[in-house]
């Protein structure tokens, strides 16, 4: 029986939990990937590459799941996890999201290679900005090689990351279609 206001029943609770889980799954997966990437102490840090790749993918294909506040949280997490000056990851991720949102209409319909190229271009810009911010915030010019390694990681990790995230995306779509 439909009443005014919120229909409070167990079915509603389960359904809204489902919705919350679906809405937070992309961000939760991004956080998990970033935490896992810090564990091997001897590999070069892949955390910014994974964060950038996740943010760009979800912004292009499912913007509702990764709104600006979520990206703010991811950027803060990235800065805290990699012990870099606060704000470097924040600004680069937010600006990368801004650029991706603008280009979204044209990019969504393109084949994978074009999207990859666009992601590479945006990553290059974001990492250059990150390098500049690091230099500005620490008052010293950091060595360029780690930034280049990071760029190579960001470009190289995007295809397997996109594969993983596409699976999640399809599952979420199917779950939403069934719900």
């Amino acid at each position, binding site marked *: 029986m439909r009443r005014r206001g919120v229909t409070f029943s167990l079915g509603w609770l389960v359904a809204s939990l489902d919705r919350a889980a679906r809405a937070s799954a992309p961000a939760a997966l991004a956080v998990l990937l970033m*935490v*896992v990437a*810090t*564990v*091997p*102490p*001897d*590999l*070069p*840090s892949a*955390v*910014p590459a994974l964060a950038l790749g996740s943010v760009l993918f979800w912004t292009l294909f499912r913007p509702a799941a990764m*709104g*600006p*506040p979520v*990206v*703010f949280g991811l*950027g*803060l*997490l990235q*800065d*805290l*996890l*990699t*012990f*870099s*000056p*606060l*704000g*470097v990851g*924040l*600004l680069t991720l*937010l*600006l990368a*999201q*801004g650029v991706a*949102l603008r280009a979204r209409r044209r990019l969504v319909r393109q084949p994978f290679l074009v999207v990859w190229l666009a992601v590479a271009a945006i990553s290059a810009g974001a990492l250059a900005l990150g390098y500049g*911010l*690091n230099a500005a*915030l620490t008052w010293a010019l*950091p*060595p360029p090689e*780690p*930034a280049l390694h*990071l760029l190579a990681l960001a470009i190289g990790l995007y295809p397997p990351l996109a594969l993983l995230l596409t699976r999640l995306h399809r599952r979420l779509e199917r779950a939403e279609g069934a719900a």
Partner: protein
Amino acid sequence: MLRLSVPLRLALARLTLPLLIAAAFGVMLLGKADAVLVERGRMALADLLAPVHAVLSEPIGAVRGAVAEVEALLALRSENARLREENERLRRWQAAALALEQENATLRRMTGFVADPMPAFRTARVVADAGGIYARAVLLRTGPEIQPVRGQVAMDDRGLAGRVTEVGTRSARILLVTDLNSRIPVVLEGSGARAVMAGTNGPRPRLQHWPEGTRPAEGQRVVTLGDAATVPGGLPVGVVRWTESGAAEVELFARLDRLDVLRLFELGLSGILPPEAVARPQPRTRR
């Protein structure tokens, strides 16, 4: 939820990104202004993630072990020959060391020499990388029984690895000696000359500021300079190597790319003394 009209909601949605970018600038300023708050936040996050890191480091350690096994199997013959030769050399050194030990004991008895006590240490496991892109640091998992203090040195089983810079309740950050900001005072064994070992973010730190007339020799052993409060003296660090460009570098004994456990040396006093510790000195731990 507030009932907002659709155009208003759209306008708000458009505004969030610029607002958050402005907030990001604010966070940047906050990070520069209040470094203590940021450090506490970082270590709180590291403490929060400590169980996750501990759980994840087991399988990753197993994978690394498997890869190392495969590499060892591939290089079996050459490794065998090298080990035989090293064994011979070490047997000769063992005989010399035993003779020197006898002589040392005799001389100590004769002169009534009082030796420095060996500093005590605790062992903790390395669980994560804490340096990110531009720094070289690792995160140690410490429990309630190990309370590291800033400035404590950390060694792996072969030589000096780094110093403690930030401490949380369940983890500690160790800045490795190869990091750009690391400066360790050292002594060249043999000549007794003091120098400073400065990290360069590369695999070998650079040796600087030795006194005139005491040029470090190739192959000379480098040990830590012990100052009474912070660093135990005589800890092995590495060996001097000259590069083709004429810079003195230290080839470290410690294997920084394969850190597993680190020893934290306890200090007699409070390590690098912040103002609070000077007012309330810590009690000496009696063993």
